[in-house]
C-alpha cells in the first residue's frame, strides 16, 4: 500500500495547536509571576498596615484578574485538544499523560480558583490574615498548575518511567517518580516558571516606568519597581542557570534539537558556540530545505562542547551525523533507525496476529523483536521521507538565540534598575524608564521564543523517537481543522484586543484612591 499521507491535515492540526498554545502563553506567564509579586506586596501591607501598600496590591490584582480570565479561556482548549486533534496520541500516552493532567485539576486548579474568589471578593468579608493566605495560595496554586502540565510536556520530550504494552498498544506507566523527577521535567519546570516570574517583573517595572515618566502615582510606581526589580533580579539569575541546565539536558537527550539550536550541520569536538549568526537563504543541503548554512556568524570557541557536556573536547553531533550516522561516535544513521523502527511496528502487528492464532511461540518472538527495537518505534513511520526527521533549523536557531540574548539582557536590566533605585535616581532616569517600557514586548517575545525553541526544535516528534505527529493526529477532514483554526484565530484575536484595551485603560486610570482595610 503506497497511499500518500495527508500532510496538510498534520500541518493544520499543528498550526491550530500552536495558535492556541501561543495565545494561552501570552497570558499565563504574567499571572504566574504577578501572583507572587502581589502576595509579597500584600504581605508588606499586612505587616506595616500602610494602606498605600493595599492600594498597590489591589491595582496589580486588577491586572492579574484581566489576564487570568483570558488565560482560563484559552487554557481549556489545550486540555481538550489533546483528544480532539491528537486522538492517537491520547491513547498511546494517556496512561502517563492523563495522570498529571488529572492531578493538576484536583490539586492545583481548585486551589487557584477557590482562593481567587476570596482574593477578589473577600477584602471586607474575611480577616486580613485569611485574605493574605488566600493570595499566597493563588500564587502557589498557579505555579502548581504549571508543574503538572510541564511534567507532561517534559515526558513527551524524554519519555521515561514507562513500558510499552503490545497487548494494549500503548505505553504504560511503571514509575510515577521517574516521570515526575526526570531531568527534563525538573529543567522544564524550573526554567519555565522562573522565566515567567521574570516576565511579570518586567511588566510591573514597565508599567511603573510609564507612570514615572508621566509623573503620576510616583510613590506607587517607585514601590512597585523596588519589589519587581528585586524579584526580577533573583528570578532572572535563576532563569539563566536553569536555562543552562535545560540546554545540557536537551544536548544529552534530544541531539537533533540541540544541533538545530546552533545550526550545527557537521558535528565536531571543541565545537564553538554561535553567539550571533545569520542564516543563508539558500539551502545547504538541496535535499532538505530545513538545513541552511550561515552567511555570517560570531563564534565563541569550544563553548558549545563545554555547554553541552562540560568538556571542551566533547563531540557535539551535527545534523549530518544524526542523519547519515557516525561510526566513530557510535551514532546510528536515520536509515538504520527507520529500519529498526519499522521492525518494531511490524513486530507489533505480528504479535497481534500471533495472539489471535494463540501461537505463544510466535508471540514471544514478536515481542522480543519489538522490545529490542522499541526505542526507535516512531522512526518506522518515516520509510518514505527521512528528511522529515530534521526540524526547521532557522526557526529553532533564531528563536533559541533571541531567547538567550533577551534573558541575559533582562538580568543586566534588573541590576541597573536596582542600582538606580539604590542611588535614588530612578525617577529622573528617563532613558532607563523608556527602556523599561520597551522591555515589555521584548519579554513576551523572549517567552514565546522559548516555547518555539522547545516545540519546533523537537519536530517531527510528539513523543521523542516514539510517536511522530503523523501517527498522533486525529483522522479528521482537513477542512474541519482549517475551520476551527480560523474560528480560534478570530475569537482569540478579538478577545486579545479586548484584553489589551481593558488593560491599557486600567493602566491609564491607575491605582484607585481608598482607605485602609
Amino acid at each position: 500500500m503506497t497511499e500518500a499521507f495527508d500532510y496538510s491535515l498534520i500541518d493544520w492540526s499543528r498550526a491550530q495547536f500552536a495558535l492556541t498554545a501561543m495565545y494561552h502563553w501570552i497570558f499565563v506567564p504574567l499571572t504566574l509571576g504577578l501572583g507572587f509579586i502581589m502576595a509579597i506586596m500584600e504581605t508588606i501591607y499586612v505587616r506595616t498596615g500602610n494602606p498605600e501598600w493595599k492600594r498597590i496590591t489591589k491595582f496589580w490584582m486588577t491586572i492579574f484578574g484581566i489576564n487570568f480570565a483570558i488565560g482560563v479561556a484559552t487554557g481549556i482548549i489545550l486540555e481538550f485538544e489533546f483528544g480532539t486533534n491528537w486522538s492517537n496520541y491520547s491513547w498511546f500516552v494517556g496512561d502517563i499523560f492523563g495522570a498529571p493532567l488529572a492531578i493538576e485539576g484536583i490539586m492545583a486548579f481548585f486551589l487557584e480558583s477557590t482562593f481567587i474568589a476570596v482574593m477578589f471578593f473577600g477584602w471586607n468579608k474575611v480577616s486580613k490574615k485569611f485574605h493574605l493566605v488566600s493570595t499566597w495560595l493563588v500564587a502557589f496554586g498557579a505555579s502548581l498548575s504549571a508543574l503538572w502540565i510541564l511534567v507532561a510536556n517534559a515526558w513527551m520530550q524524554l519519555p521515561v518511567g514507562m513500558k510499552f504494552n503490545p497487548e494494549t498498544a500503548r505505553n504504560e506507566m511503571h514509575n510515577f517518580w521517574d516521570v515526575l523527577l526526570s531531568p527534563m521535567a525538573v529543567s522544564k519546570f524550573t526554567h519555565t516558571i522562573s522565566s515567567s516570574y521574570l516576565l511579570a517583573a518586567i511588566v510591573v517595572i514597565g508599567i511603573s516606568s510609564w507612570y514615572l515618566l508621566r509623573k503620576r502615582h510616583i510613590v506607587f510606581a517607585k514601590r512597585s519597581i523596588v519589589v519587581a526589580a528585586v524579584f526580577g533580579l533573583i528570578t532572572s539569575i535563576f532563569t539563566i542557570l536553569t536555562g543552562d541546565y535545560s540546554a545540557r539536558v536537551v544536548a544529552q537527550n534530544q541531539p537533533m534539537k540541540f544541533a538545530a539550536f546552533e545550526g550545527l550541520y557537521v558535528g565536531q569536538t571543541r565545537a564553538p558556540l554561535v553567539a550571533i549568526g545569520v542564516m543563508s537563504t539558500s539551502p545547504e543541503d538541496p535535499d532538505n530545505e530545513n538545513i541552511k548554512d550561515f552567511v555570517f556568524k560570531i563564534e565563541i570557541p569550544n563553548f558549545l562542547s563545554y555547554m553541552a557536556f562540560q568538556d571542551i573536547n566533547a563531540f557535539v553531533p551535527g545534523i549530518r551525523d544524526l542523519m547519515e550516522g557516525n561510526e566513530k561516535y557510535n551514532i546510528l544513521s536515520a536509515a538504520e533507525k527507520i529500519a529498526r523502527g519499522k521492525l518494531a511496528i511490524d513486530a507489533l502487528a505480528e504479535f497481534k496476529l500471533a495472539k489471535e492464532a494463540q501461537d505463544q511461540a510466535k508471540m514471544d518472538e514478536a515481542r522480543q523483536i519489538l522490545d529490542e527495537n522499541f526505542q526507535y518505534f516512531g522512526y518506522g513511520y518515516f520509510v518514505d521521507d527521512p528528511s522529515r526527521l530534521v526540524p526547521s533549523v532557522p526557526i529553532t536557531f533564531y528563536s533559541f538565540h533571541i531567547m538567550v540574548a533577551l534573558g541575559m539582557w533582562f538580568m543586566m536590566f534588573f541590576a541597573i534598575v536596582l542600582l538606580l533605585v539604590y542611588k535614588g535616581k530612578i525617577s529622573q532616569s528617563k532613558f532607563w524608564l523608556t527602556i523599561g517600557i520597551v522591555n515589555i514586548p521584548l519579554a513576551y517575545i523572549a517567552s514565546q521564543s522559548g516555547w518555539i525553541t522547545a516545540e519546533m526544535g523537537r519536530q517531527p516528534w510528539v513523543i521523542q523517537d516514539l510517536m511522530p505527529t503523523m501517527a498522533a493526529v486525529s483522522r479528521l477532514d482537513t477542512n474541519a481543522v482549517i475551520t476551527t483554526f480560523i474560528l480560534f484565530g478570530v475569537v482569540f484575536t478579538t478577545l486579545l484586543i479586548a484584553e489589551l484595551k481593558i488593560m491599557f485603560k486600567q493602566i491609564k486610570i491607575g491605582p484607585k484612591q481608598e482607605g485602609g482595610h
Partner: protein
Amino acid sequence: MFETFELYTLQQYWWIIISLLASLLVFLMFVQGGQTLIYQLGKTETERSLIINTLGRKWELTFTTLVTFGGAFFASFPLFYSTSFGGAYWVWMAILFAFVIQAISYEYRTKPANFLGRKTYEVFLFLNGLLGTILIGTAVGTFFNGANFSVDKMNLTNIYDSAISRWETPFHGLEAVLNIHNVALGLSVFFLARVLGILYIVNSVNEENILVRARRQMWNNAVPFLVFFLYFVIYLLLKQGFAVNPETGEIFMEKYKYLHNLLQMPVVLILFLAGVAGVLYGISSFLFCRSRKAIWFGGAGTVLAVFSLLLIAGLNSTAYYPSLHNLQHSLTIRNSSSSHYTLTAMSYVSLFVPVVIAYIYVAWKSINNKPIEKSDLDDDSSHIY
C-alpha cells in the same frame, strides 16, 4: 492500599469518581442556567448586575470542575478521550467555544474600554448557558444511545493510516441531535440548570423584585424539566441496553438493561429515588413554601440523580460508550481504562478530594455568608463585575 485492589475494582472506583465529578458539574451548572435568566429575572441594570455578580462568584468553580472532569476522564479512561473527542469533533468544539466565551465575560463585561460592549458579553453568557448545558446533556445521551465510531488499536501498525479511533459518519458527532432521546437529556439538563439557577439566585440575592419574578420563572422551567426528564428516564428504563459479557468481553443487547442495573444495584436505585425526591422537594418548597434554602435540596438531589444515572451507564457489565458502527467496538470500563499502576497512583491522589471539598466549603461560606444586595454594588472596596 490501592495497589492490592484488582484492576476491575479500580476501574469501578474510577467510574464512580468520574460519575461523581459529572454529577457535581451538572449541579454547578446552576451558573449556566442562571446566565440564561439574566434578562428574565433582572429588568433594570442594577438587578441584572446583582444576578451577574452572584453568579460571577461561582463561575470558576463550575469551570474548574469541567476541566477536572476532562482531566480525570482522560487519565482513567483514555480510550474514551481519544475516541469521542477526536471523533465527535464538532460537538466538543462547540462546547469548548461556549465555555471560552464565558471565561472572559464576567471580568470584562463592565470594564471600561472593553471593545465589544456590555451587551455582547451578556450574550456570551447567555450562549454559554444555552449551548453548554444542551450540548453536554446531548453528548452524555450518547452514553445510553451509542455513537458511530470504530476502534482498532492495531491500526497503529499501518504507517500510512494509523488512527486507532475513527468516526464513521461525516458529521463528526452532530448526528447525535437526530436522536430524540439524546436531545431530551440535553433539554432536561438545560431546564434543570435553569431551575437550579433560580434556586441559587433566590438564595444569594436580596431583592424583592427578583424573588417575585423567580417564582413565575420556576413554573416556566420546572414543568418542561419534568416533562423532558420523565420522558428520558421512562424511555431509558424501557429500552434495550448495551450489556457486556464479563467473561468474554462480548457486547450484546439486553432488554431493560438499565432497569435491570437499577434493580441489581439497589443502593444506586435508592440514591436515584432520593435524588429525584430531593429535586422535586427543592422545587416545591420554593414554589409553595417560598423557601430560599431550596438550592441545597435541589442541588443534593441533582448530584444524587445524575450520579446514579451515570453509574448505571458504566457499572454492572454495561458498555458506557456503545458503538453503533460495530457493537464489539463499544467502550467499557474494562477495555478503555488506564493501567493498574496509573489507576493506583491516581487513586491516592483522589484521597485529596475531601480536602478540596473542605476548603471549597470554607471559601464558599466566607464569601456567600450573606446574600448580595444593592448596597454591595456601590461598595468601592469590593471587586464587582
